[in-house]
């Protein structure tokens, strides 16, 4: 199965581990992620002010690129890109007046009328590939690994863009169980990491990260599994500072769901680029015998 794929900016820079592991794992599962041509930044956040149509043009242009590719479906890995593209699509479907204004402004492009379905890779795994088919491809069951799922904000909010239940999503847990991973109950699974406040108020984000990571540690988790490069940064980058401030915090590996999927279906650990992860993922996986000792 070929699927149009929108990468977004961070997957090509700081989150190479997310993209490489996803492409390799999906290939094993028989899904080819075909990068859309001439994509641009999605804008990262959905503009909510009623009169602010200019900022919807960036995501809509990407949807036009998908339509030009002859495709009616696009998949993203990054949760932010998913949310921004999905909500731009919903706006174009549901607001005829705004749709006309935006299409008129982009007079050098084909009109966009909601002809593309925006999906996240977790939806493709659940709804297209299916848990049973994934289970058949598992070559390295990740037994002995205990994780907590972390959805953050943009996979399940707002309601109309949610890939799963808004308050009690289960898709990451379901995937992890198929891979042989033990999933622990995690009350903060959908609590915000502080998001873009890292730019203006890193101190507040450190408090958020400590709340989330500290809970993961108390639950006995080996790692936090997530799908958003901004969550990965906010929960990962400042762990040394968190440990300095809060002596009970001892560090927490942060891993993308695609990396564990790739490892389990037999993709080489080098492809997964665990060296780019925060919190000591390589050491954890070595300790559990899931990747070879360094030679």
């Amino acid at each position, binding site marked *: 199965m070929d699927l149009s794929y929108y990468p977004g900016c961070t997957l090509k820079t700081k989150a190479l581990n997310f993209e490489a592991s996803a492409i390799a794992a999906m290939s094993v599962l028989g899904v080819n992620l075909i990068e859309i041509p001439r994509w641009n930044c999605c804008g990262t956040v959905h503009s*909510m002010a009623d009169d602010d149509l200019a900022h919807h043009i960036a995501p809509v242009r990407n949807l036009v690129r998908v339509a030009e590719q002859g495709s009616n479906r696009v998949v993203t890995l990054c949760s932010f890109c998913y949310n921004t593209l999905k909500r731009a699509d919903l706006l174009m479907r549901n607001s005829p007046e705004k749709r006309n204004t935006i299409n008129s402004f982009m007079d050098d492009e084909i009109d966009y009328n909601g002809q593309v379905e925006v999906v996240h890779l977790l939806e493709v795994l659940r709804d297209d590939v299916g848990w049973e088919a994934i289970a058949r491809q598992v070559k390295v069951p990740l037994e002995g690994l205990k994780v907590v799922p972390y959805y953050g904000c943009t996979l399940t909010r707002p309601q109309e863009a949610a890939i799963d239940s808004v308050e009690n999503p289960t898709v990451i847990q379901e995937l992890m169980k198929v891979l042989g991973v033990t999933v622990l109950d995690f009350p903060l699974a959908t609590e915000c990491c502080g998001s873009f406040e890292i730019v203006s108020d890193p101190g507040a984000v450190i408090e958020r990260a400590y709340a989330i990571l500290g809970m993961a540690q108390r639950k006995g988790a080996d790692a936090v599994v997530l799908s958003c490069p901004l969550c990965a940064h*906010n929960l990962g980058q400042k762990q040394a500072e968190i440990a300095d401030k809060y002596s009970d915090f001892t560090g927490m590996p942060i891993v993308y769901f695609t990396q564990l999927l790739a490892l389990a279906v037999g993709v080489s650990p080098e492809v997964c680029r665990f060296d780019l992860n925060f919190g000591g993922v390589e050491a954890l996986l070595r300790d559990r015998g899931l990747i070879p000792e360094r030679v």
Partner: protein
Amino acid sequence: MRLEISSGRLRNEFVAKIAELSGQDINLCYQCGKCSAGCPMSFAMDLLPNQIIRCVQLGLTDDVAKSRTPWLCASCLVCTVRCPKGIDIACVMEALRQIALRRREDFVDPAGLERDTVAELPAIALVSGFRKLTG
């Protein structure tokens, strides 16, 4: 506290602008406090989200304009999905930011960020931060 409520105060230009930009009817709010209870950034706020809404209802626009709360809102939408009256509170926060940003009152100065900070932050953080906190 003595509070004078008049129709002029309740229907001032600032309140009208919030309604226009957010498309929300904040008078539906009956102060249950669910938005503030779920807000992950409330620990750092001077006015809680429900207090912002109450101030707007009462036309206390100076208090709202001075508050740091809209700038601490991370647009995580927990308040929005939990409001029993269907008010998109995150959208009200966006309107409050937009009113300031359209007066060229940026909350962060991109040029003032340390070089090391910029190198450390992923593109997703910089773009979203500047989109929300600068005009």
